[in-house]
């Protein structure tokens, strides 16, 4: 993240767009393979975060704004999403301790 106004031109944007399409293609390819649910989920999430990061930095120009903007917004969102992870034990309780379906 640098403080500069040198935003990418359309050629760079097209290259980024092609890269994002390639990532979507990889996601579809992974889905067609016989991966376990856990492996598929982790792979898709990693790829989705890479895609989102590229979109945020280049398409939304966050890379070319003052660093203050990034540090004011992004850590707060990550913290909130991180705090939501406390729900998983209850989700597993629902799955494992429920009355079996007849």
């Amino acid at each position: 993240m640098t403080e500069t106004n040198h935003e990418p031109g359309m050629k760079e944007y097209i290259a980024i767009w092609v890269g994002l399409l390639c990532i979507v293609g990889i996601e579809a390819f992974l889905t067609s393979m016989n991966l376990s649910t856990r492996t598929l989920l982790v792979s898709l999430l990693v790829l989705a975060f890479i895609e989102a990061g590229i979109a945020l930095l280049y398409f939304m120009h966050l890379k070319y704004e003052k660093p203050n903007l990034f540090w004011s917004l992004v850590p707060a969102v990550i913290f909130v999403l991180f705090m939501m992870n406390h729900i998983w034990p209850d989700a597993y309780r629902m799955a494992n301790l429920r009355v079996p379906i007849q």
Partner: protein
Amino acid sequence: MSESEITLDAGHAAALEPSPYALQSKKLTMWLFIISDAVTFGAILFGYAYLRIGTPNWSTPFHFSPNIVNGLVMTFVLLSSSLTMLAADAAAKEGRKSSCLKWLGATVVLGIVFATLHLREWFHMFDEGWSLSKNPLGGSVQFGATFFSITGLHLMHVISGIIALIVIAIGYNTDWLDAGHVETTGLYWHFVDLVWMFVFPLLYLMNVAR
């Protein structure tokens, strides 16, 4: 300038700090909206994952063809609309009004194509018996509830974005709005695209029948 005005200006200068972000206020406002909306989508996707883990008879109704192929086409259309939005933004910054309007029009058309493909898929699922509270496969109804809720919220954002782009195009054409408004609306449109990057893998690819 009188002495009293000079004193007033000096007073304001002391009271107003320079902006730490160096952004137009509308752009900063859009960033704050995007951050709050990101948390909203994050929360409903966490809710979806919670229900999915806690529901033993979860249905995975999608097949690679036609569901995932349709989803891939929708993704291609939405990603392409981000590219046309960037072209509109670049043209607006350089003062090329007709070019900006052309690219804004292309973005609107691609948004309408995305919404049409989405609604076509929904109506196909309704015909199969899916709804917020019905599962034609006999499993948990939670799939329909979460799928239609999350994709519905995203579709609402797309439709809102299309309306906003049309308003911005009209305003920019009549010099009522400027390049900053085009850029700010572009931020929103890219965010809608960003959300789809999570919705597509989590709701479509993770629900392919095995």
